[in-house]
């Protein structure tokens, strides 16, 4: 199946499930995800019981559905015991119909790889692994707070390739003190490993992280925007040459092997979120609803035990909010923002004058007979600004 077939296959009825495993062996200094280290020995059975309760609750909200993708993220979900994962996937299958072709991804860290465990994950139904490699330089791995070495990462990739039909590698670049040549060298090494999907993220300092404090204290210097942009351009060039097409700001894949689950997010599809701090977008009674779970694992569990769910947000999205999300997500992908869909869902459309201006400035282009707006190469560096420009010029259809 090639990309365009998948695009056609996509429709608003696709449905994905995200499961959040919030525990890690240690907290990385750049990470602002809902993750917790030093939890001692958590009882995985308790967490599983919570998941199962939530699945039942979500099923009552969504009604019967066909699941096209499942993504188990974190945190470090490769800390999950295979039988727990097995029960989790079974619970999902008992509530919804999971398509035979569904993409089922697990995130894993190279620091906790065991051949046996990976084989077990595969046998309970995981068909795609997303490996948090982050770097292939020991010095940088240490600086990023990772518990593995470059050597371990390479071994892990080797094992993964043997077990999983499909896998992805995560890397972080534009790291402090990194040069363009450093990155060129490291990326060629990554590309030589034969992966068919890469998520290549520039280091961003998020508020509330250890790195943010270090930066405030003047101990951490992020790269000049010009250099970071040059690295980005180099990344596009090298991945394209290697046959991995950029299909989102930071994601590259051999055509046909794009992450189905992540595409669901970027296309503003429907997905349920399970686990502490998980977000979801579900259709209920004809409305698009944003849902969010309690963040702290113990509170999350207590709430579920008390009332059968741990929702802290259940908000009907307005037309404008839906338009905003379509623009935020759409402009990040090479598919672009589908204007027809935007008009159909939100009854709003960006002002023609604004669009023309941005097209003339060479940041945006039309595609598919003016039905789609796409960000051009030089617009990708400033996509947030383009999102703001379009979202603040919305007018009724």
């Amino acid at each position, binding site marked *: 199946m090639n990309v365009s077939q998948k695009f056609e296959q996509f429709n608003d009825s696709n449905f994905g499930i*995200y499961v*959040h495993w919030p525990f890690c062996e240690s907290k990385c200094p750049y990470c602002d*995800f*809902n993750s917790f280290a030093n939890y001692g020995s958590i009882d995985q059975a308790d967490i599983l019981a919570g998941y199962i309760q939530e699945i039942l609750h979500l099923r009552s909200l969504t009604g019967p559905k066909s699941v096209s993708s499942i993504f188990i993220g974190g945190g470090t979900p490769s800390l999950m015991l295979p039988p727990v994962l097995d029960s989790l996937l079974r619970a999902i299958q008992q509530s919804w119909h999971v398509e035979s072709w569904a993409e089922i991804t697990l995130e894993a860290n190279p620091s906790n790889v065991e051949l046996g465990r990976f084989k077990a994950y595969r046998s309970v139904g995981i068909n795609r692994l997303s490996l948090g490699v982050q770097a292939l330089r020991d010095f940088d791995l240490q600086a990023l707070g990772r518990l593995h070495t470059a050597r371990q990462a390479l071994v892990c990739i080797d094992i993964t390739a043997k077990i999983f039909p499909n896998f992805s590698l995560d890397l972080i670049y534009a790291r402090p003190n990194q040069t363009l040549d450093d990155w060129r060298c490291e990326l060629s090494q990554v590309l030589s490993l034969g992966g068919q999907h890469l998520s290549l*993220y*520039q*280091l*961003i300092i998020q508020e509330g992280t250890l790195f943010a404090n270090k930066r405030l204290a003047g101990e951490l210097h992020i790269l000049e*925007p*010009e250099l*970071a*942009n040059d690295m980005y351009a180099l990344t596009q060039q090298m991945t394209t040459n290697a046959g991995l097409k950029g299909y989102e*700001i*930071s994601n590259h894949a051999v055509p046909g092997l794009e992450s189905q689950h*992540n595409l669901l*997010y*970027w296309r503003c599809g429907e*997905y349920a*979120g399970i686990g502490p*701090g*998980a*977000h*979801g*977008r579900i259709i209920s009674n004809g409305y698009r609803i*944003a849902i*969010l779970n309690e963040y702290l694992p113990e509170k999350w569990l207590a709430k579920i035990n008390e009332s059968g769910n741990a929702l802290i947000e259940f908000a009907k999205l307005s037309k404008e*909010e839906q338009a*905003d*999300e379509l623009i*935020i*997500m759409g402009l*990040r992908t090479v598919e672009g923002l589908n204007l027809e869909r935007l008009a159909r869902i939100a009854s709003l459309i960006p002002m023609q004058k604004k669009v023309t201006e*941005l097209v003339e*400035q060479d*940041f945006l282009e039309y595609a598919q007979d003016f039905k789609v707006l796409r960000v051009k190469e030089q617009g*990708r*560096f*400033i*996509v*947030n*600004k383009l*999102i*703001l420009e379009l*979202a*603040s010029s919305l007018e009724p259809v």
Partner: protein
Amino acid sequence: MTERSYIRNFSIIAHIDHGKSTLADRLIQFCGNVKDREMRQQLLDSMELDIERGITIKAQTVRLNYKHRDGRTYQINLMDTPGHVDFAYEVSRSLAACEGSLLVVDASQGVEAQTLANVYQALDYNHEIIPVLNKIDLPAADEARVKTQIEDVIGIDASASIPVSAKTGVNIQYVLEAIVERLPAPHGNKEKPLKAVLIDSWYDSYLGVVVLVRVFDGVLKKGQKIKLMQTGSAHSVESVGIFRPKKEIVKELGPGEVGFFTAAIKEVADTRVGDTVTDDKNPTETPLEGFKPVQPVVFCGLFPVDANDFEDLRSAMAKLRLNDASFSFEMETSVALGFGFRCGFLGLLHLEIITERLDREFNLDLIATAPSVVYHIYVNNGQMREMHNPADMPDPTLIGHIEEPWIEAAIFVPDEYLGGVLKLCQDRRGRQKELTYTGTRAMIVYELPLNEVVFDFYDRLKSISRGYASFDYQLIGYEQNDLVKMSVLVNAEPVDALSMIVHRSRSELRGRMLCEKLKELIPQHLFKIPIQAAIGGRIIARETISALRKDVLAKCYGGDVSRKRKLLEKQKAGKKKMRQFGKVEIPHEAFIQALKMQD
């Protein structure tokens, strides 16, 4: 009506925070006017802003009945006066209506600049002054030092000053005794035609305009037809009353008494502070002297952030003016900001109070342009025009010369900050007139151009002195100077709301600072933006805002979209409040922020 010899009228002179309102509360409480359960702080400050800022904006009065140790009960009228220079005229009217003053000085702080100006005014009205040293409960209180300071700086005898603590109530009865024993009873003759001074007036939605008066001669009573001598209008008195501080209706007010009347007067603007109230049929032959209409000194443009709020702004301003005739407004249009109003104020505090009330009480989001003073423009044929708005500046070839208003400023400052304050005054084209010391505090008197003061002089003074300097000023007249209009161009488009009048010698510095500040305040766009300051066609300063190079999130998945959307909503709201100049968007707060200089 109380016999004249049993009446005492006094006001309280104090610097902000020296405890005037607390002392007033104690005096009221001591005389039993309010039950303890009704007691709240700052009884006399009725506006929310009064209480919050610790200043009194409108004059207030309260009548107390005090039983003296001689066995007689005295009627004591307390007049609370505005404590700020912007309201100096109101202060002078209130003082004119009393025979004496309490000079309240914080015993832990000492005399401040505003106090000084008001004491001198009180002395001009032949007031008997009773010095009261407040806050003696504080460990830092130093009675002896402050007494010496009062004698040195103000030049009045402080030997009989009364140490009190308004907070704890210590020695309050001695204050009341001193008022009875040391202040003279009012003069006046109840047989003569009515003669009363209009101290203040305000709008009450039930009663119409309420007029506060002090009677000198004759009697004011219900049903009487009175005349306001300056405006010439006549009205029938509908009610006569006093404040305790609650309103209480009385039969009449006689010589020496203070109270209010209502007379179906529709607008506060019809009643002028300082006017003489007399009997319409039997008028006094000698109206009170010294009436002068108040003139706005500082002007600025106020524009609604959302153009749809224009009508709301107009009606809000009209409502505020009902109670504050010294505030003026007329419609203005700006290329940059659209429809708004050019507003006149008594001073900077007045400006701030009005804009804050518009924001709080009427929930209006406003763009305020740079405050401007009133310039006198002499055109070539010798005629003089007043200019309130730099945008109205005629072509320079048509101008003979320009005059600007100057002030005399008195500043009190601890000597460790003196150097910084002198530099500030010097940088602002000031001329030093006086520099004296009392203890470790310096008093400096400077002549300064008002246009150097209106922007941020007070803020700078406070920050240089870490809040310890106090400042007071009065207008002293107009002076010819080499003044030019500086315009600002953003992306080659002139932004009228940012143009200003500056002294030529200061123009390059101002221009450079303004451009630098705008560079910080205007967000990066998708293209580069030149910012220029110009005098006529000549560019005197230039900065460039580079094009936005990078603004992208590395990750945006299912868990990130809510956060990103909420951020986007904020950005969209911020963008709505920006003003578009050609292709450039300028945040509305930039218009006032850009003018704050860092000397």
